[in-house]
């Protein structure tokens, strides 16, 4: 069954923000759980072919999620989400960071602020994520990291493969 779920991806190069809106075929509570419980985040957060592993999760204001995205070769890329404000099941704000396995923040890499808002839309859940970077150069660095972690190149390869198959 094919659904036309809303998906907006808007970059504001003047404000250095990324606004991502996505609709899900589930109620708000369930989608909130998928975003805020580590056992559920582990099952979707890292884009294929990477997988997610949680080292520690303490979902409360001032708490954090420390996790790794693992590529097929077993290389671990560590990330941290520090929760600032939480209003279940409507929104949370957080600061992200690149870290190591010991949760030490890599100060050379950019940090961004996240505002994730959940709402109801015709019985479905709508999630709006606004990521604010300090500069466009920071956003570029994050995209570059995605390349290095094999998230993007693999997707490109998949696109190429699909194109070949269709021909």
């Amino acid at each position, binding site marked *: 069954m094919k659904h036309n779920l809303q998906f907006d991806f808007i970059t504001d*190069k003047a404000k*250095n923000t990324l606004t991502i809106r996505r609709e899900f075929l*589930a109620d708000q509570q*369930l989608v909130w759980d998928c975003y805020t419980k580590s056992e559920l985040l582990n099952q979707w*957060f890292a*884009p294929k072919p990477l997988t997610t592993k949680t080292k520690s999760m303490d979902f409360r204001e001032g708490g954090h999620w420390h996790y790794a995205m693992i590529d097929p070769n077993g290389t671990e890329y560590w990330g941290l989400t520090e929760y600032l404000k939480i209003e279940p099941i409507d929104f949370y704000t957080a600061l992200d960071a690149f870290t190591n396995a010991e949760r030490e923040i890599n100060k050379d890499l950019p940090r961004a602020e996240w505002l994730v808002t959940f709402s109801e839309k015709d019985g479905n859940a709508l999630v709006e994520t606004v990521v604010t970077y300090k500069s*466009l*150069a920071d956003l570029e660095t*994050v995209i570059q990291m995605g390349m290095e972690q094999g998230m*993007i190149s693999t997707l490109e390869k998949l696109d190429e493969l699909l194109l070949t198959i269709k021909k």
Partner: protein
Amino acid sequence: MNSMRRDIFQAIADPTRRAIIALVAVHAMTPSALAEHFDTTRQGISKHLKILTECQLVKQEHQGREIYYQLEIDKMKEIDNWLEQFRKIWETRFQQLDDLLLTIKKK
């Protein structure tokens, strides 16, 4: 190549340079004509144009004694291509969440 890409993003991070890009996108302009749109000196504009030229976001065209600046459309597209890559990451991530939601609901 990486440092070059980084420069492009830094180049367009400046509000004056973004305004210059917007102006030369409409039609080619000389530095003096551009300066009329800003509160900065001609030298200030020239400095911005130098950075934009180095990043190949604008190109020079000599017409008689005047130098006109115009937009390098391909370079601007390159930036959008980068953002498009980022969009794909999110698409994949959300498809995985769709699958997970479906699995949970079936239980």
